[in-house]
């Protein structure tokens, strides 16, 4: 028996001389390579299902009215502000997942949608510089006990606003105390389907609100990655905290019917 063990150790030493990697055993992680695309419109869920407090339901209704009149409500992304978390998981553009020992990166072109989920075992820092995508700590879990991780459990804090769930303007609380919890995993029956079970805890809600996002892996393992530049050709402009538009021929124009032109006071004595 002892001779067998010694033989085993010798073989492992041989493995070392053959340069076999032990630092990052990617076979322990699910294969998440490739290009992931959303499988539905980039909407959260119907606002009718949102368990909003009466105060925030009123804010949402005002958003809807403003948007119907040509405004943007309280959806800030028309100025190319990041959608933030959890909205980036609507997956406006295809994304890539890169797993390293220290972090799992969700690489999304769009506005500023990329995420860094830290999986190096760190604790929450005492102070977090708030950001639109937040500070995410994740942990890989082997739920089925087969020796291979299959679920990435994530918590995100340190968020800032303004954010909404999607372009309809379902709002978050202005206190930005949102916490987002996720379970990300492949479909057991179809490894080209990825799920993200997302639970939002926010003071604009009467209770935690959960939804599941579904993404499909594209067939091409060498996908084409397009560049998405929000600011290029963006025809929305903000003056005096109001949205205006730029016409296709480059002139200022109203966003809403009857909207007054911007005040030009600063041009009156310019250079005189």
């Amino acid at each position: 028996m002892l001779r067998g063990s010694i033989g085993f150790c010798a073989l492992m030493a041989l493995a070392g001389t053959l340069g076999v990697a032990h630092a990052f055993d990617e076979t322990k992680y699910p294969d998440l390579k490739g290009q992931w695309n959303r499988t539905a419109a980039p909407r959260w869920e119907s606002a009718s299902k949102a368990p909003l407090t009466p105060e925030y339901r009123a804010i949402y209704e005002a958003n809807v009215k403003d948007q119907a009149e040509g405004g943007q409500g309280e959806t800030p992304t028309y100025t190319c502000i990041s959608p933030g978390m959890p909205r980036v998981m609507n997956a406006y553009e295809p994304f890539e997942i890169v797993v390293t020992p220290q972090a799992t990166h969700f690489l999304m072109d769009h506005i500023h949608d990329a995420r860094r989920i830290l999986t190096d075992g760190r604790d929450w820092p005492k102070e977090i510089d708030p950001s639109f995508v937040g500070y995410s700590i994740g942990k890989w879990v082997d739920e089925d006990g087969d020796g291979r991780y299959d679920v990435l459990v994530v918590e995100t804090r340190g968020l800032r606003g303004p954010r909404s769930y999607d372009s309809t303007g379902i709002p978050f609380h202005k206190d930005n105390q949102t916490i987002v919890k996720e379970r990300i995993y492949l479909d057991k029956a179809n490894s080209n389907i990825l799920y993200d079970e997302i639970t939002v805890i926010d003071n604009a809600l009467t209770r935690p609100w959960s939804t599941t996002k579904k993404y499909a892996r594209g067939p091409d393992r060498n996908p084409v990655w397009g560049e998405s530049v929000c600011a290029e050709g963006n025809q929305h402009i903000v003056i005096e905290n109001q949205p205006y538009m730029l016409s296709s021929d480059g002139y200022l124009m109203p966003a809403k019917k009857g909207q007054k032109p911007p005040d030009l006071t600063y041009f009156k004595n310019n250079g005189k």
Partner: protein
Amino acid sequence: MLYRKTIGALALTSALLMTIGIAQAFDDSKYPDWNGQWRRPPGVNNQWDPSKPRLKEEAPLTPEYQAIYDANLKDQEAGGMGTDPTYTCIPDGMPRAMNVIFPMEIVIMPKTTYILIEYLTMLRRIYTDGRDFPKDFPASFMGYSIGHWVDTDGDGRYDQLEIETRNLKNPRAFDSSGIPLHADAETVIKEKIYADKANPDVLHDEVTTIDHALTRPWTVVKNYNRVRNEIWVESICQENNDHLKIGNDVYMRSADGFLMPAKKGQPAPSLKYFEK
């Protein structure tokens, strides 16, 4: 006898490795440790060639593009943006992204090395899987990059990433002073990225730009310092960006949100669409 025993041992080793699932796919010990956060050195501003003072970088521009650059400087002095296009929050593009105005992270994977630059999510994918440049690929600000790893000192470990980037689109400039690149966007960029031999926390990027606005290839060496236990701070260009582009003109937004001129004597924009 020895030969048969050796073959037997190797066969057993491979089988054993497969059954216990030891990764042979990605031997990260072969690659340099470039983990952490990389920042431009203190004292280096938004300039392409860090070895010279800003505005005195002596870019080898053709006479035509030197004239464009000089006109751009005059426009910037008068309050305009000249040939620096990024005031509308479009990406810096290549090669300007390697000014690393905000910190970057390098993630090395077997088929791709990712350079993540915090600013407008400027992401570079440097394909190291042996592919050729594609035909008819859409141009982009960051371009299409193909790289290969080199072991320059023969110690069995890669130490240099050599990259070529093509398929770029405009508008781009080398830095905020507006050093222009040619309107034909046929820029080719070649890089050698390697750690300093004496200090692995210093990274060098020798960047050679080949462009028709230049009389010759222009090579500069960019340097970055590593920060461990890094903190990543989000940078959102459009937030508090008070530059406005209306038509082809640059305006400003005042601190109280009103439209204002960028230059002395600049007329107000037309409000013709408000008169109907």
